[in-house]
């Protein structure tokens, strides 16, 4: 691979589907890996293990031939094999299933079991919120909790002639819609936006004394984080507008649930991968932050062209690619005795991000 920072050597996906979903691998050489479903099955997109420019795109099944992956990562790759759909929510589900077996350690197993146990109550909360929104829209006020079931049934009966669907089908629609509204990851979008804000502030403070590849890496992470936050806010506005009209949302879902699901999950797709990036920074001591920055530059989620269309915010793709080319010009330090510590750190990150 050429060492000169040529921006055209960089991988640049056009859509979020093409960018794939961040995989919470614990093997240090797999930092920043993403997975997507392609014609030949599940593919992995792995940033160059030497820490330089470029990515490897390979079949998920090839992982054992690519590097000495940890037991957890081997099992996670097995879990992903054959997946027909790849989204942040399906990835979180797969990661929890693997961690719940204890492949990332006992503490990660307990955390994954707790996260799985919370999935159903969270979904029930989303269903209740959706029903309350429908009641509010039809009656002008939300129902008291002890009367929610009765009022919800009454409202659904009123909606039967509106949507020409029986109550049972409407109930199933609401259940499926609530699934889309349930946060897939342990760190929900508002919390993640808070983490990103903290990261931006930290990096502005820390970047003053940096030079060379570390300074470029800090600039890359700050630039991409700021742009992502701005886009996330814009997308949140349109999602909020969609959610505010519960009956319109249900009508849209009935007409084309794929389109509505896509709109509701845009922020999750946009922010996917940032939790791990923020946690690398948080888990790193003050005297090892240049190393963390070089790793974060590899992991930083690339914004595909689709992001501009989703958010209505233009982005200078060429400038971003040049910045990435400069930031990825450093020498990789993730080797030798550091590997064991990095695996242990990545397992700690799993606790928070899975």
């Amino acid at each position, binding site marked *: 691979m050429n060492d000169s920072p040529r921006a055209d050597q960089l991988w640049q996906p056009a859509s979020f589907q093409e960018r794939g979903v961040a995989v919470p691998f614990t093997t240090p050489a797999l930092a920043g890996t993403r997975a997507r479903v392609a014609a030949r099955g599940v593919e992995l997109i792995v940033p160059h293990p030497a820490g330089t420019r470029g990515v490897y795109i390979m079949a998920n099944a090839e992982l054992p031939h690519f590097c000495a992956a940890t037991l957890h*990562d081997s099992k996670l790759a097995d879990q992903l094999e054959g997946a027909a759909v790849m989204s942040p929510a399906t990835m979180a589900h797969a990661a929890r299933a693997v961690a719940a077996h204890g492949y990332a350690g006992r503490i990660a197993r307990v955390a994954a079991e707790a996260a799985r146990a919370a999935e159903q109550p969270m979904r029930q909360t989303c269903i209740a919120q959706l029903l309350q929104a429908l009641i509010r829209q039809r009656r002008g006020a939300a129902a008291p909790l002890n009367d929610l079931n009765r009022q919800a049934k009454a409202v659904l009966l009123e909606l039967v002639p509106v949507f020409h669907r029986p109550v049972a089908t409407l109930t199933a629609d609401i259940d499926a819609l609530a699934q889309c509204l349930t946060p897939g990851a342990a760190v929900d979008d508002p919390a993640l936006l808070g983490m990103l804000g903290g990261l931006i502030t930290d990096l502005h403070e820390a970047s003053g004394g940096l030079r060379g590849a570390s300074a470029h890496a800090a600039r890359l992470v700050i630039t991409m984080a700021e742009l992502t936050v701005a886009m996330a806010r814009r997308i949140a506005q349109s999602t909020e507008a969609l959610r505010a009209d519960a009956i319109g949302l249900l009508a849209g879902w009935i007409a084309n649930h794929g389109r509505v699901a896509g709109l509701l999950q845009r922020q999750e797709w946009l922010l996917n991968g940032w939790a791990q990036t923020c946690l690398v920074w948080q888990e790193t001591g003050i005297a*090892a932050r*240049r190393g963390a920055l070089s790793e974060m530059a590899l992991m930083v989620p690339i914004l595909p062209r689709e992001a501009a269309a989703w958010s209505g915010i233009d982005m200078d793709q060429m400038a971003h690619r040049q910045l990435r080319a400069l930031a990825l010009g450093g020498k990789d330090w993730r080797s030798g005795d550091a590997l*064991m*510590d990095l*695996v242990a750190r990545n397992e700690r990150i799993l606790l928070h991000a899975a």
Partner: protein
Amino acid sequence: MSLSPPKLPPVMGPDMRTMRRELVGASDERVLEVLRFVDTLPDRAAADGLLAPLRNRLRVLRPPRPLRFERLLMAPLNPVLVEPAAWRLGAPTLPRQAITPIAAHIREALPYIAAEVDRIGARKDESDTDRESAAGRILWSDAAAILRVSNVPAEWSTTGLPASTYRGMATGCAAVLGAAWRLHMLGDPGLPSAELNDYLNALLAECEPDGGVPWGMLLTVILQCFPQAEAPLHAATAQRANRDIRAAAEMALATSWAWIEAATADPVAGDAENLTDITTQLHHRIGLLMHLADDASHRKRAISLQAELRQASTRLFIMAVDSVMLAPVALLAGTDAVGDATMHDLEAGARAIRRLDFECRRLGGCGPAHDSRLNDAGAHIAACNALPPVDRARLIDILLGARAALKLLPAA
């Protein structure tokens, strides 16, 4: 330059010497009891000599101890600390008996910072390294500024050293402490080597006007903390017109040789945390040794030492596999449920062994022996029915890799 041994400090009287002899053969309980008593002393100068022959045993016993102000202050100076009998006038080293009066002097000059450092030292939820780092950030540079201009403190008489020795030692301590936070930050693994060398060269050049002893102390610290960098070894071996600096460079290099050679002594593995510390030191020692082997004038000695170090490291590795992994696993036999803390310790032990294995392999020639030992360990772990299969697989994953671990688990 006269090189005379110092007088034995007055703190080591005949009673103390008798007690020290008794402690050498005392039980672990007795050693820990004495240690608890020593930790409560407001002035532990009298006890330092008592603890000297116990340091190896304390490394194994690892009693939980508060980090005292003296230790936090002097952490950056560890590479230049020597026992009183080993100190020579004009050498870029610091005799241990100087610690207490210097620390007392800094405590008196910086009471508010000292109080905060005491609070940091007493924290129980942070590692020693984290506490050293937190304390150093607020302490080292201010302490250096005090030491640069201070007069001989009254407590200096307790060292048994002439007052005239204070200024050189204080300036040496100031040189190291003044650079300590910057050195701490230069330990960042992501720092490019060219940038690291630039910084280290600048630090050494900045210190040169202080004279041979301070410059030599700083060089000794840098040689041991940054063995992979070219700048310190170049500074140690370069032709120099200044005789003091030349002599200091020779002594810094001699101290570093002795520091590497110390790793060939009888190994002590201790627990996982202790093993990790030893491995970190070994990593630095091997780094410097490899660097010295690249230099024609040191190659012969370095290659000979490499062979000795390989033997000692392999002995340490074999001992570590036994004490950190196999013995704790054997103790689990018959246990119904292995607790999370035990499993955490076993995983920490396995990681410590792998780190040590990596360092040993840098010395070459130990691959087959280590593979065989690790395979034996894997077989013992696989047969340990007290652990659930997934826990056994985790330990084998760390020691031997995922391929070996997957054999223990049912196929998906």
